[in-house]
């Protein structure tokens, strides 16, 4: 268990550094690929919520520390996104489909941008120092998210040998019961 937490921690640091110090140099459209957000969506959908929150906190802290922006609050944005995705994957997109995953990814990108804009409004209304975060083209960002989720979905199917993966294990008891009912 500790090893898994360490892996999440290490991945959080690496992905946070990638987004804040490496991909910022890339030309369009590569600079629209937000690796940490894509990974956050994958972790939230395929893994436990606690791990997703830890990943969000670590990645967010790294990005907040490195990026020039003083209004992004990446950590808070990512934690909110974990909650939103968890809720939606349990209540609305609970049919474990690829289209559901892609919809969740798009919602994550839109939520990330929406919260960022709100934070910037609030921060810049309160402080004279305006250093906003760069906003990449949202369509390109969503496209990258779709690609990552599609590949993740395929990998998940390949390596787990399961045709129907769970969208979320956050309500694992309910889903497990459903599985048992289905397969038994």
């Amino acid at each position: 268990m500790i090893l898994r937490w360490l892996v999440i921690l290490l991945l959080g640091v690496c992905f946070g550094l990638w987004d804040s110090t490496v991909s910022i140099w890339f030309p369009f459209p590569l600079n629209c690929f937000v690796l940490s957000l894509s990974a956050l969506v994958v972790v939230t959908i395929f893994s436990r919520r606690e791990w997703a929150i830890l990943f969000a906190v670590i990645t967010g802290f790294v990005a907040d520390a490195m990026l020039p922006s003083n209004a992004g609050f990446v950590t808070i944005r990512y934690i909110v996104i974990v909650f939103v995705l968890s809720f939606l994957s349990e209540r609305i997109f609970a049919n474990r489909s690829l289209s559901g995953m892609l919809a969740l990814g798009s919602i994550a990108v839109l939520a990330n941008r929406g919260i960022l804009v709100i934070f910037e409004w609030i921060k810049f209304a309160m402080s004279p120092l305006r250093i906003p975060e760069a906003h990449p083209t949202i369509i390109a960002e969503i496209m990258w998210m779709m690609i990552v989720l599609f590949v993740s979905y395929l990998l998940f199917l390949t390596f787990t040998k399961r045709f129907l993966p769970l969208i979320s294990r956050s309500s694992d008891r309910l889903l497990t019961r459903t599985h048992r009912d289905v397969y038994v």
Partner: protein
Amino acid sequence: MSGEGSPMSRFRPWIYGLAMLFVVLLIVIAGFVKPIRNILRTILVPIARQTSYVGSVLARSFHIDPDARASAERIAELEARLQTQTVDYVRLQALEEENASLLAQAKFLSDRGYRTLGARVISRSISLRHASITIDRGSVDGVEIGYAAVSENGLLVGKVVNIGNRTAVIRFVSDVESRIAATVVNSNVVSGVVEGRGNGVAHFTLVPQEVELAVNDVIVTAGSEEKIPRNIVIGLVNDVESKPTDPFKNAVIEPLALLHHIDIVSVIIPGPAEQL
């Protein structure tokens, strides 16, 4: 109560998550963000230097088309030549000006010196309207808010606007929030203000009508700001907008420091030359 399937266990992840969000919000509201950021930066800056270097090298290697690469190299060569000649021109003008000045002023200028502090760009945020970078030098290295940062060729990149222990944020000249007192080269008075307009462009505004201004004039820092020395090249005049009825004229200027090619900067620290 916390057994399998009980309401408590079902909501436990939500409770953990909300607690985490609450703690983070508390940290932000209580003003602990800066110390935490500083600690993280102290730990991460050495790694970020390497990853940032890798990123800049990777970005350069994306130009894989041979023709595009040759053109890009040619453009870079010409831009470098233009930059060098502009800097040389300004230096020559400054030297002529010094020679023509009074001895007392010349003595003052020779006594006055600046030291520079090399810094690597570890992160950046560039959009159409805004452009800023994070560098790996901070208050422990002697950097202060308001200091000027120049490129390897001595061209003004921008001003330090935010600072941590180990890092500082520099706002580019072309950022829409950027304001820098400037003048035409070889002029002894402050002529106007360079205001960023985004997308790599700036305007030279509030220039009195009596100031001579023409296309291709070199705009330099005026030296009226406490922490920014004079005669640092900002850019070239591309277009002059002037109406006889207006009290001021404006000019469109093209900052010479290229946003996308800056991975190393020097922060100019005012102080006696002996401290070098």
